[in-house]
Structure formats: C-alpha cells, structure tokens
C-alpha cells in the first residue's frame, strides 16, 4: 500500500484504487476523476480523513475509484447519509458525488435540506442532462421537448436550473465547472474545499452515449466566446476580445452590454444577499449566448455540525458529563426496603 512519494507528501497515485474504472469510453467522468485525484494531494488532508459518499447512477461509482474511505449508497440519499457522517465527525472531509437524476429528482429533498442547514459537505453534481445508467431517459435537467426513449414525442417537464435551485435553497457556496477544463475544475474544487459549510458544485459532464455534445458550446470553446469566467473583484466581460459584458437591469435581471458601457457588473461572490448570484445563474447559453463558469456565491454562515458540536460542548460545560445512574434516579423516586 503506497503511502506517498517518500517525503511524506501524497501524490495523485495515492488516491487511485486497484479497481478497474467502468465508465464508458469518452465519458466526462474520467476527466473529473483525474482532476480530483490530482487535486486531492494539494488539499493536505490525510486520505483516511477523506470520505466520498455517492448515491446511484453513473457518477455514483466515483467512490470506488478514490483510495479514501467511501460509500456507494442508495439513490438520492447521499446528502442525508453524508449529513449524519459530517455531523458526527467534524474531523472528516466529506464529499458527495451525485448526478442530475440522483440529486435533483429522487434526492431533491435531501439536497435542498443539506444546503439550507449548511452541513460541512462538498456536493459535486455531475450534470449530463440525461439518465445514463438506466440507458437514456430524460432527466430533471433535460431541456423541454427532449426526445428520449421515455419521451418519444418530447419531454413535457420544464428543467431545473441546478444553480438557481441551490441558491434558492440557501446554499452558501455555489459554483460551476466543466469536466474537460482541468484548471477551472481544480480551482472551483479548491474553493469548495476551503469553504466551511455546504458547497455545491455543478460540473457539466458529457455523456457520449446518450446525450453527446450537450455542452459542446463551452467544452470545445477554445476561443472563449461562450464561457463567462467569474472572478470576484473583476468586471464580468467575455468574448473573443473580451468585448462583451454583463450588467444588471433595474429589476435585478442581467443583460448583455458592451465591455465599454457604463454599469458593467463587477463580480462579488461574497455578496451577502443571494440576488446577484441568482441573477447570474439565470444567464444561460440559450438566453444570453454565454455561460458563466466559476464561483457564483461564497458566503460565511454558521455551519450545522459546528452548531451541534457547540451545543454539546455547552451542555457538557454547564451540566457536566452525563451521569447515567444520576439520570435514572432523577425525578420522583421511592424506596422499598
């Protein structure tokens, strides 16, 4: 069992397992796994203190390939299971790997509650806008009218915007990355890891079998004409020559303007209110011709597991460590000789 490169530092290799990776050739999951394995050593957290928890779906196989502690659980429940783990073990770095069906359909309730509680979890949603493991039914992020095996005349349901949902669910950290963009993904993962509390990261992930090329507009965007990179403190501009920009209308929604126009938005992920992050989450390829990538929101709020540990410490401080015998004899007792 390899334990680092000899000078005590872990390498990417230390995070690989002996299990054969069983995703389809060309699956975006490979790139995300590679990014994660190469990024983990940077984190400086021991492998034994790192736990990956997943639900069901293609993405959910992820823990088997990370040489840390891991649990491949049941469909949609990973945020709930990870909540119990993170809440009882503050010393761990707990990651949830999920997909659009797992997190937003069967597990939607657990996702929103984990986010509002601000449990110390890093939730990575691999969004391929399709059900892969069940072979190609539409998902809750598929576009309206999507023709799939289960929707031969086109899907009828309006899709979720995962980032809007997370922000609406009171998430304190919300970001987006693209599977093939290793540098961008790594930067977002690092920011998520550094955020204490729930971090929600949507990763555009290509499914070459059932929904190929769904994100080509940003994955293959070598010129950077479609990616809108969000950097706190910088004006939000993009385009081949950074000629386009975003600005807010009086109703809070966002419109495109020229980079030289007055009122160009300066990104502020730490803005206390969620309005700006929400407005940015509504900027899409379909509506604005560009797709924001990076950290949308990163704010500090009390963390559920810290609050719970605090109550335990406070109760122990004021009442002393619980004494079972004294507890049983509390209340009204009587003695028979």
């Amino acid at each position, binding site marked *: 069992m390899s334990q680092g490169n000899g000078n005590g530092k872990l390498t990417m290799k230390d995070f690989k397992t002996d299990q054969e990776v069983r995703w389809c050739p060309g699956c975006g999951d490979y790139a995300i796994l590679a990014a994660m394995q190469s990024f983990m050593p940077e984190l400086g957290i021991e492998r*034994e203190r790192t736990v990956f928890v997943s639900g069901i779906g293609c993405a959910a196989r992820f823990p088997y390939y990370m040489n840390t502690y891991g649990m491949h659980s049941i469909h949609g429940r990973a945020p*709930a*299971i*990870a909540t119990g*783990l993170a809440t009882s073990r503050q010393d761990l770095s707990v990651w949830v790997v999920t997909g659009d069906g797992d997190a937003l359909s069967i597990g939607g309730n657990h996702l929103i509650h984990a986010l509002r509680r601000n449990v110390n979890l890093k939730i990575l949603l691999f969004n391929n806008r399709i059900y892969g493991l069940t072979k190609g039914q539409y998902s809750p992020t598929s576009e309206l009218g999507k023709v799939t095996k289960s929707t031969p005349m086109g899907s009828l349901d309006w899709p979720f915007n995962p980032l809007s949902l997370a922000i609406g669910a009171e998430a304190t950290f919300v970001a987006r990355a693209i599977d093939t963009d290793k540098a961008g993904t790594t930067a977002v993962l690092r920011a998520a890891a550094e955020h204490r509390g729930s971090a929600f990261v949507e990763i555009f992930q290509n499914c070459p079998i059932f929904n190929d090329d769904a994100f080509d507009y940003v994955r293959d965007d070598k010129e950077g004409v479609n990616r809108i990179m969000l950097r706190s403190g910088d004006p939000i501009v993009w385009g081949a020559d950074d000629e386009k920009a975003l600005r807010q209308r009086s109703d809070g929604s966002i419109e495109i303007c020229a980079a030289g126009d007055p009122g160009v938005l300066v990104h502020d992920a730490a803005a206390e209110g969620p309005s700006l992050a929400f407005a940015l989450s509504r900027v899409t390829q379909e509506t604005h011709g560009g797709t924001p990538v990076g950290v949308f929101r990163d704010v500090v709020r009390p963390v559920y597991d810290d609050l719970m540990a605090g109550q335990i410490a406070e109760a122990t401080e004021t009442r002393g460590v619980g004494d079972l015998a004294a507890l*049983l004899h509390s209340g*009204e007792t009587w003695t028979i000789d």
Partner: protein
Amino acid sequence: MAKPVEQLSQVIVRFAGDSGDGMQLTGSQFTSETALLGNDISTLPDFPAEIRAPAGSLPGVSGFQLHFADHDILTPGDAPNVLVAMNPAALKTNIKDLPKGGTLIVNADAFNDRNLQKAGYPTNPLEDGSLDEFQVHAVPLTSLTVGALKDIEGVTSREAERSKNMFALGLMSWLYGRSVDATVDFLNAKFGARRPEIAAANIKALQAGYAFGETTESFAVTYEVKPAKLAPGTYRNITGNQALSYGLLAASKLSGLPLFLGAYPITPASAILEELAGYKHFGVRTFQAEDEIAAVGAAVGAAFGGALGVSTSAGPGIVLKAETVGLAMMLELPLVICDIQRAGPSTGMPTKPEQGDLLLVLFGRNSESPVPVVAAMSPSDCFNAAIEACRIAVKYRTPVYLLSDAYLANGSEPWLLPDVSQLAEIPVGFATAPNSDGEFLPYLRDEQTLARPWAVPGTPGLEHRVGGLEKEDRTGNISYDPDNHDLMTRLRAQKVAGIAGDIPKLEVDDPDGDADVLVLGWGGTYGPIAAGCRRVRNTGRKVAHAHLRHLNPFPRNTAEVLHRYDRVLVPEMNLGQLLKLVRAEFLVDAVGYNRVTGLPLRAAEVAAAIEALVDG
C-alpha cells in the same frame, strides 16, 4: 372531620374529558402521587390524534386510566371502578366500560343543553334515571373552581375554568388518601417562573377540590390502598418511550459509542426524539431530519463514522426507511431502528397501539435481507430491550429492529432502577490494523459471529469502500459472480440465524409443569396475557405462558417448547402475524386470538380464550 376509611386492594380510575381539559396531565399527576405512595401501578393514556378536536364532541374525548394496587399488577385494568367524566361526551364514550355499581363522578356544570346535544343525548342522563345503576356524584366542578379562584389576581375567567381538572384531581386525591404535595411542586415548577398566578390558581383549585371532599356529604367514606409488596429497591414511575430513551443512553455508555439519533416527528415515537434532545451532555446528537428517509440515512452515515446510529419512528415512517435498512444490512453496519407501532394501515389511528408491523420489519425489504428483531414487553422493559437491540447491532454489525407500541410508549409503571455498574459492557472492537497479510479486507468475517470488521474513517491504512452492490466475499469488491452471490446471501442469513446461540432460551411459566395448553405471546401483550393466565389458574385450570423478546432469530429452544404442549394459543393485536410464523417455521397447529381495537388486549378476553381452549 375524618370520614371512615375503607380498605381496598386495588382500584382502576379513568379520567375522561375534552382533549383540552387536561386529562393527560391530571392522570399523570394522580399517577405520580400514587407511585410515591408505594402502590403498584399501570397506566393507559388513550387520546385522539387531534390536538384539539371540537370542544364537547365525541371524537375529542381524551382518557387516562390508572390501575393501582397493594400487590403486583400486570395491566392498566380492563374496566374502571371509578369514572371521572368532565362532560357529556366523555360520559357517553366511557360509560359502557363502567360496571354496574361503579362510581361515577361528573362535572355537573358541563351537562348543559349544548353539550348534551353535541354528545347526542336527547335528555340529560343526570336527570332521566339512565345512570341509576351507578353511584353518581354530580359535582359542579367548573363553578366550584371559578368560585375558589375569584380572589386570585391576573387570572382570566377562562383560565380559572381551565383549572377545573386540578379541582377534580384534588377531589380524587382526597378520596384515595393521596398527598397533593408532589403536584404542588410540579405546578410551581411548570408555571411558577413564567406565570406565578397560574401556578397559584391551579394549586388553589387542587386544594379546593381536596377540601371539598372533606366537607361534602356527597362522599361518605374515603378509601385506602396499602403500598404494594414489591421487590426491595428504588423505584420511579416510567413510560415506555422514556425507558427506551434511557436504554439508548445506557447502550451508548456501555459501548463507548456516541449516540446519534436521526428522527422525523411522528406519533407515538416523537417523545424519544424530544427526550434525547435534552441529553446533549451525554454527547447525544439528535438530528431532526427533513423526512423519515433522511432520518435513518443520517443514522447510517453516523454509524459509518463510528457512532451508535439509531432512528425512531412508527409504521408509516418505517415503510419509508425500508430501503436504507436494506443498505445497512448490506453494508453490515450497526444500526437500531425503533418502531413504536401504532394502529394501521396507512395513517390508521396514530395514537392507538397495535402489533401490526411484525411481518413488515421481518420481511419488508427487497430480496433476502435478514434483520434481527427485538420486542419490548412492558413500559419499563423498553430500557432492557433497547440495550439488547444495541448489543446485537454492535456485536453482529447489523441493523436491528426494536419493536414497541403506542401502549408501551405512553403507558407507565413503577420501574425498579437497575444498578448501572452491573450492566454488561458492549465491546465494540473497531478494526485498527490490516487483517490479511498486510491488507485490509472489509468483508473478512469473524469466524464465530460472522461479523465483518468495522473500520471507521480516520483509521490510517484501512481506507475502503462499501456499498449496496453485491460484494465479493472477503474483499468487499463489487462482484456479480453467481456463486459468490449465493455464498454471500447465505452468509448474511447465517450470521443473523447464529444470533440464536447468543440470546437466552425461551422461558416457560408453567407452575405445575403439566399444562396442556401453551400461550405464546410477544412484545407489548405481556401484561394482559400474564394477567389472563393468572385468572385462568385461579379457576383451577392449568396453562403455560411463554413470551418472545426475540422475534428474529427465535430462541434456540422455541421448537422444543412448542412441541411440548398439545395446543398453542397465540394472542396478538393483529390478525395473526406471529401465528403465521409459528405455523410456517415449526409446523405447529397453533391457533390465534386476535383483536385490533386500537386498545391493549384485556386480561378477561385473553382468559376467556385460554379457558375455551383448555376446556375444548
């Protein structure tokens, strides 16, 4: 002026009123006073699911029955000797249970036209002679209470009226020679700081009721029930949910594992969540989840991290947890799921007991998914049952179902407090090092228990992955190999079946050893079945009684016990679930006695069923 005192060996009192009348509080305070006097007691709260059903209506009636005696008793009693009815609706719904000659105390003020109409009485039963066969005491409780409180400042007339339950309690306390001191302390503690005038009003009402008994000519005698000769030791009165909570705390101490409770509020299990939330200084983490699924999921997550993971619920929540219990069975992690059974199906009758979930917890999961099942037999026994469930879960790395029910949960009895230092430790034995030639194999089993190692995150070198997919023997790697699946399915079954060697044999209560009929029960029917057997034996007939605490696996001598008797009767608060198992597992032609009324079985009906079988 002292009135004559009549000695009684036992009394069954039932308080009944509107759900807003405070009958549960009145009953539980009368219970406290009675327990402190040293009587043996058994209580049965019986209330509607609605918090405040329309005032004066029949569905809104809430009752509390208390059986107290100078000897050991087993049940809250079949029928009351004394009925306290606070309004016509309470009279209407309860009078059928009062035997002829029984004592009836009613709040005469509440028998007005409006309330009589709501209860469906065409004429006033206090005046039409229909209650002639009872000893009726029509006391104007409301007006006497309001009169007694007229000098207390800051109390509205509505609040004064609401103190009438304390007047009734005072009167009953006088009638049975109970001291009201404990109730005075209780009222001061409950209201003293926030609303001292409310405390004063309630105490005044209580004392006025007591004094009324002394002075009124309506009551000629008072009664005394001497202390019961119970085993020596220190006692307290305890409900099943409280005892279960203490049992979980004890198991946490005995194992050294921090307790993590995931729960979603549900009747009648919520009291466990509320109780344990108050013990953070025991290191308890209580997590009120977004739903039943998350509640048990979080408990599994905590168990993976090395906590004593517990989830509490009732039938409608248990069905939602099935998926996660199956996962825990596959992960082979310790987990305790408490099912405080209530009458069903679907939403059913949330506040009423039933034993309807036995087959659900045994078989309600996909595929071959064995889970041990432990059932509590009485309110105080919930303590021991909880420790036993945790012991099995930890030792065998398995989810365990703990069954209680709404009667055990809310009912109470005196509890001989155990010596905590004598409780057996629960060894955990976390894995700390590789177990196979420098490698860690997460499914390499203990040869004796077949339990797998429990390696928790934070342990260097033992990093491993678990999951719901079938896994290879020893390594735990994903495997779809046909023979491996057959092997693993059998190993999981064998592990649970093997627990039979680690639980006590089934004991039989057969005083002469020559009965022909065996009564086999399980869980919360212990009291009425044992009481029924006593009655049968008092008639000179012979009957044996065995009661199952473990429903999976059964005690190893169960077959031998069953085959020792000519006939076997299985009384249950369901339509024959244990009966099915007994017939299927042991090829015994047992017969059932089955009632699903939402009330505990009655000793008399169990006795009649036994006698029919003995004589038949």
